[in-house]
């Protein structure tokens, strides 16, 4: 049964990614779509961490920052191909997560939140202050990965928007597939178990510390890859990507969508990415409305959009 749910989720996602372009009136929609996919990717990482392992992080943008700046710096200083830089960034993020995760993950609840927050702030502070390397708060250019021109040489002409829409969508699908696999696996169950009761999880043989670390590292990699994709498609990157507000935005997306599922993550990412675009008509009222939407969703759908809606639908069926 769980196995079928996985394929349904993936199919829904794939159809959305594949069919939406048919109704896009302009290139701008590809851009927004790509952003949603990139955000959804990092939110899926957080779903693993928060929804499954029950560990909060207010510093995940730090990993996005590492991923983004890896793509900005490595090609320039190490002569690495931007795509390899993405892998390098993911590797550094994973290593970082493993390193800091060990001491940090012993903390619980808000103490963990503040520790991860500290990590995120450290990263963004380094990116901001090491001007010589990173361009400081003004940011720096990111080299074009050259893939588009490669495709063009192969006779496949795509606009930048279309290209990144495709790439982000593809990566999101892969990310979603991996996450769904994980959820329905012994590791996923172990993570949820330690979320429920660490003591009980330990007594059934779950290495709690290790399992937490696993979730942390995996989610860091998701955030890092998302950060890299963002840097590559923007062609320009500033320390904002690693900032506290971005961390909070990621958590908000996860919670808004419903912290337990891949589709929820995508939905949360979509809503929070689209809202500012929709709210431009309100201009002055944008912040007010954004805040209001967040509050209302949480009041009426406390489990997040997707789970709460699913629950209601189920309730009606019966």
């Amino acid at each position, binding site marked *: 049964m769980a196995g079928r749910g996985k394929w349904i989720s993936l199919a829904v996602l794939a159809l959305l990614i594949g069919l939406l372009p048919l109704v896009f009136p302009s290139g701008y929609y590809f851009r927004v779509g790509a952003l949603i996919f990139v955000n959804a990717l990092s939110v899926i990482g957080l779903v693993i961490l*928060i929804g499954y392992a029950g560990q*909060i992080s207010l510093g995940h943008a730090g990993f996005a920052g590492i991923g983004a700046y890896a793509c900005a710096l490595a090609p320039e200083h190490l002569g690495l191909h931007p795509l390899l830089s993405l892998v390098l960034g993911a590797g550094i993020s994973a290593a970082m997560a493993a390193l800091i995760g060990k*001491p*940090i993950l*012993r*903390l*619980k*609840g*808000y*103490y963990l*939140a*503040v*520790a991860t*927050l*500290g990590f995120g*702030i*450290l990263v963004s*502070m*380094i990116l901001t*202050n090491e001007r010589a390397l990173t361009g400081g708060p003004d940011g720096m250019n990111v080299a074009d990965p050259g893939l588009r021109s490669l495709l063009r040489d192969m006779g496949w002409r795509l606009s930048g928007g279309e290209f990144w829409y495709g790439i982000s969508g593809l990566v999101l699908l892969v990310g979603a597939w991996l996450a769904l696999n994980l959820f329905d696996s012994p590791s996923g169950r172990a993570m949820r178990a330690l979320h429920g009761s660490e*003591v*009980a999880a330990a007594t059934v043989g779950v290495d709690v510390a290790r399992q937490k670390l696993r979730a942390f590292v995996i989610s860091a990699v998701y955030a890092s890859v998302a950060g890299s994709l963002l840097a590559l498609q923007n062609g320009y990157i500033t320390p904002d990507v690693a900032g*506290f*507000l971005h961390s*909070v935005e990621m*958590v*908000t997306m996860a*919670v*808004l969508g419903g*912290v337990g599922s891949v589709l929820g993550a995508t939905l949360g990412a979509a809503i929070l990415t689209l809202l500012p675009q929709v709210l431009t008509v309100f201009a*002055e*009222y*944008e*912040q*007010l*409305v*954004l*805040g*209001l*939407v*967040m*509050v209302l969703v*949480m*009041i009426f759908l*406390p*489990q*997040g959009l997707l789970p709460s809606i699913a629950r209601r639908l189920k309730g009606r069926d019966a």
Partner: protein
Amino acid sequence: MDALLQFLFSGLTVGAVYALVALGFTIIYNASDVVNFAQGEFVMLGGMITVFAFDAGVPLPLAAVVAILVTAAIGVALNKLAIEPARGAPVVSLIIITIGASILIRGATQLVFDKQLHRFPAFSGDDPIRVLGATILPQSLWVIGGALAVFVGLWVFFTRTLTGKAVLATANNRIAAQLVGINTGWIMTLSFGLSAAIGAFAGVLVTPITLVSYDVGVALALKGFAAAMLGGMGNPKGALVGGLLLGCLEAMTAGYVSSQYKEAVAFIVILAVLFVMPRGLFGAKTTERV
């Protein structure tokens, strides 16, 4: 030597600001286990409302009282309109509500007032007080005094009054609290009202030093949160010590090491403290047995 003293004055001033925010967190946290990320907004409101009332000709003390009362009412409204309806929701959802509320309050403030920086006069003038070659502004003494006063008040509230215990009981076990006759809804209202009032009070005290605009809340909440965690969440002692310590850490780092990385040093110290004491300096142990 006078430099050290100057750094200390600076640290205590800034630290007292953090402490006031951190103290504001304690009540709501103690009543509901929720860290109210809109706490910084209360501080901002305290400052902004006072500014506009004062500019409209209301005497400063009265303007301050108005600001505190209005903010307390907003706190109560936040509880009634957003927190209570979402009762039973997971804590992360409640946190997102408070974050949403803070964005909302910011957006509304920017509409009702403006996006400019503001300030009103210091209570006892701007002439610095000289001590052994270092200087401190009279307003800093107000802030430090305010933080101490709020601390003492909260400490008495939580250790000496039955209502204070009822607040703790509500967070610890809401059902049981109702079973012993505690009106948990009222306790929540009270907590939000008090927290907001403390926040606004802080805003009134610090605005002459830090200035105020619609968006100062985020940074304040962040630092206050860090301070509260350093000291141990929920304990007024922790909030006070955590705040002052954080302020002094930053000032000392800025003075002796590097101003660029003063926040970094502060966070590294917080991480180090938490590594040794996972519940902060004075954090209460939760005692759940298996």
